[in-house]
């Protein structure tokens, strides 16, 4: 149960530090939205170059929980589907691999927004 917790902490923390530096060094151009978009895109590109997979091996959730891990799943899904189904896989693979995450985000997001009132 406590497998991989220290690597997850270190890798996850380091990825977040990159986001923090991006925001602090480019203030005020880089908003949280920019951080999230660049992490998804960056994660997908690093995966395509074969550089993100090793990070997932080392850091486990430390690499998959940050949004760059979402980009990793998208790119990995697209490449695997291309291998199985050819060019149509480029369109289906990414969304298929991340369908659970996207559906969970929409469903839980909607539920909580309806259930709760904003504070303050």
């Amino acid at each position, binding site marked *: *149960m*406590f497998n991989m*917790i*220290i690597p*997850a*902490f270190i890798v*996850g*923390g380091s990825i*977040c*530090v990159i*986001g*923090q*530096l*991006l925001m*602090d060094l480019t203030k005020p151009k880089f908003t*949280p939205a920019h951080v*999230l*978009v660049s992490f*998804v895109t960056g994660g997908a*590109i690093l*995966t*395509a170059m074969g550089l993100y997979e090793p990070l997932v091996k080392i*850091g*486990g*959730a*430390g690499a*998959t*929980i*940050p*949004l760059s*891990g*979402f*980009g990793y799943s*998208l*790119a990995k899904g*697209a490449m695997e589907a*291309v291998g199985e189904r*050819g*060019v149509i*896989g480029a*369109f289906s*693979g*990414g969304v298929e691999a991340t369908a*659970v*995450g*996207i559906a*969970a*985000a*929409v469903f*839980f*997001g*909607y*539920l*909580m*927004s*309806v*259930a*709760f*009132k904003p*504070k303050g």
Partner: protein
Amino acid sequence: MADNNLRKPTISVTPENYKALTQQFTPKPTFVKNVVRAFVVGGIICAIGQVIINLFIASGLSRVEASTAGTATMIFIGALLTGLGVYDVIGKFGGAGSIVPVTGFANSIVAPAMEFKREGYVLGVGAKLFTIAGPVLVYGIATSIVVGFVYYFLN
């Protein structure tokens, strides 16, 4: 004229000097503090994610399924804590440490949707869910398709 009544400055301050002086009194950038906080908060969130994934593996899911289920669980937790107003507090402390993990993605979905509920359930909640998630999905999915194409033509 009022200007004539002012005494001459006793020290000669050139614009350069002035710049140096103001720099001396501006608070030091909080880079180090922010970085440490982002590391600790981001690290803790990912460690919690790892514990959840380990529990899913122990319950019999494969590694990939457990990772997917773990991500969905973290999205649920992030959305719930945003609704309860707790994630705001974590965010003020953790900076990017609370934005970059998928819990921060859930926060970026719930926070604007909740805020714009008074504009209705279609154009308020429904539309604002995607204020930040929209761009993330657009760039994420588009990139994955380009990656798929490049992979297709290279093989």
